[in-house]
């Protein structure tokens, strides 16, 4: 690079720096990014297309519901809430570019939707650099809060609990301590977390674990895995699977005439999953930290959804809608506590102090005042009733 060119570039950089500083000085007097006198802009990155679109759309719908409800009640201290939703198609590279767009082009004040677990990890450097307040609720990944990022708050217990709670219940309340235990888990970090929760329960109660089988995400046919379980004589199985796989596995169990006690994770609550699994006739346990389609508080929210959301969103109401709703609700609370002077610094400090915030029965109380700023919510257990195709709750919200 020639000397004159370098000098020119240096001058350019110097002028850019000066003008930026001047701009910054001027903007301090004005509102914070994304905040005007009448409106606060927040952003969400969700998988609205692709394999996880069911989850992403529900999360976005929940957020829309919270915003509609808040705005109908006059907004937050006189300001309305507005949100921009970006689709990342469940690809981490797109999550990063979406979040950059939200932060740099759209200039949002905060983030209330952060797509999947590995996608959130990919977005972390950008989020940390921008110091933007972020609520993580759809995929509570422990890696996000260890180490603690100053502006990131997480709602939800680690996935380990999903693996631990049903097994613990089977032993303590269903008298299955002497059973032969098995687990089917997906071969990614989400599945591994379930496995570690399961193993924790096995160790704690001294159980006989006969089969720990991993499978690739997207698999449809589980005949080999189920046959392995039968061969090992498993009669208490944890299914670390999402919607349709659980139904397919249960139908294999039925075909081989296996008498098994089953537990799965919170996605098993989705109405589509319950309906698909009903013909196989198994009553399986579902842990969740949200109350959704089968609970009084959830049903009340569904009534609001009918009023504020589109017909499609209402028809697809599930526990991820509740998750989206709670995430935005908590963020809005942080904004509310800042009164008229809404800045990122203020919201972050208010959220840090949040303790026992009530979500109206949709979950346990939300508290961020702990080292990881993670609201480890208590978990409720549900059980399906295949005869009627419904789900009833078995326990209340219990902190494990």
């Amino acid at each position: 690079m020639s000397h004159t060119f370098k000098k020119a570039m240096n001058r350019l950089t110097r002028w850019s720096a000066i003008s930026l500083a001047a701009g910054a000085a001027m903007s301090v007097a004005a509102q914070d990014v994304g905040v005007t006198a009448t409106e606060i802009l927040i952003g969400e990155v969700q998988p609205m297309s692709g394999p996880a679109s069911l989850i992403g759309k529900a999360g976005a719908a929940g957020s829309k519901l919270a915003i509609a409800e808040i705005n109908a009640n006059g907004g937050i201290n006189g300001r309305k809430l507005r949100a921009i939703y970006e689709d990342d198609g469940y690809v981490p590279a797109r999550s990063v570019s979406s979040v950059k767009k939200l932060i740099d082009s759209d200039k949002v004040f905060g983030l209330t939707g952060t797509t999947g677990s590995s996608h959130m990890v990919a977005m972390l450097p950008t989020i940390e650099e921008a110091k933007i307040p972020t609520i993580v609720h759809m995929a509570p990944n422990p890696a996000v809060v260890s180490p603690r990022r100053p502006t990131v708050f997480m709602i939800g217990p680690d996935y380990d609990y999903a693996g631990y709670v049903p097994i613990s219940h089977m032993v303590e309340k269903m008298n299955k301590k002497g059973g032969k235990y098995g687990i089917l888990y997906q071969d990614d970090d989400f599945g591994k977390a379930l496995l570690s929760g399961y193993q924790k329960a096995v160790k704690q109660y001294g159980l006989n674990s006969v089969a720990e089988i991993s499978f690739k995400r997207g698999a449809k046919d589980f005949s080999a895995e189920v046959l392995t379980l039968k061969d090992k004589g498993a009669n208490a199985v944890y299914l670390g699977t999402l919607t349709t796989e659980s139904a397919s596995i249960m139908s294999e169990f039925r075909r081989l005439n296996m008498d098994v006690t089953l537990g799965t994770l919170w996605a098993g609550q989705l109405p589509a999953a319950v309906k698909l699994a009903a013909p196989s006739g198994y009553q399986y346990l579902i842990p969740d930290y949200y109350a959704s389609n089968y609970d009084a508080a959830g049903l009340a929210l569904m009534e609001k959804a009918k009023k504020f959301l589109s017909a499609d969103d209402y028809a697809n109401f599930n526990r991820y809608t509740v998750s989206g709703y709670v995430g935005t609700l908590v963020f809005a609370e942080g904004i509310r506590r800042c009164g008229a002077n809404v800045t990122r610094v203020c919201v972050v400090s208010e959220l840090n102090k949040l303790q026992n915030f009530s979500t109206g029965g949709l979950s346990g109380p939300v508290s961020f005042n702990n080292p990881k700023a993670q609201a480890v919510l208590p978990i409720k257990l549900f059980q399906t009733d295949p005869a009627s195709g419904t789900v009833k709750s078995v326990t209340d919200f219990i902190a494990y």
Partner: protein
Amino acid sequence: MNYFMNLVMSGLVIGTLYGMVAMGFAIIYRATGMVNFAQGEVMMLIAYMSYTFATIPGMTFIPLLACVLAASIVLGLLIEWAFIRPMLGEPMFSRVMVTIGLAVVIRSTVILIWGVEPTAFPRPFGNAVIRFGEMALYPGQIFALVSLAVLSLAMWLFFRRSRVGIAMRATSNNETTALLMGINVKRISAIAWALSAVFAAFSGLAFCLMFSLEPEISQMGLRGFPATILGGLDSVVGGAFGGLVIGVVENLAGGYLGRGLKEIAGFVLIIVVLMVKPYGLFGQREIERV
């Protein structure tokens, strides 16, 4: 039944799906020399259309099957006429790319119309397990096995006995010469696509009856490739056989080796076979001239 036999049985059942998809690939390759990357998506579209037919009140199985077959033939002819025929004469790469573009379009359209939620497909034969001695099968699984057997037999007879079969081979070999010989190339192409849609219909129905109606049906297209290659890209009956083999090998790998090797067992197998037989087990060796 012992572990091994059970694994084989389940492998055969899932293999029928691979086999029917493979047959769909093979018939198009045999007639036109191209691979239809949209096979899985066509299967998905027909499956969703069948669902709409099945929810018409009073629809029992035979009328449903008839409707589905008619619809699939029309769909196959339509796709061929609208998307494939205009590309006759273009380089193979572009023609194959059209099927890829078509796959994206069909998948988006289906989700647009029917939504993403998985739904239970109506079970016309009920859901009770049928037990033959020690073996147990669902009606949907029996349907899949019977379909594959019937289709393979029909295709074997078709290519052995009918002139259209031989005409197909001529067309894929050299279109211009076939035209000079008086073969109606456009008609052959249309027939191939219609037949491929019929295979897609059966495999789509089998999938829905065994599992559920969901957007992931389109992934079956990709999963069917190893079966096609194993049997030979231009051998329809070979494709059926390849499907069964891949299904069984996958299940045995899953049952005895575990650790996720089930998914790549099929791919490893075809690489090994291709080293020995570069055109698959039953494929025709392509003779190239300078």
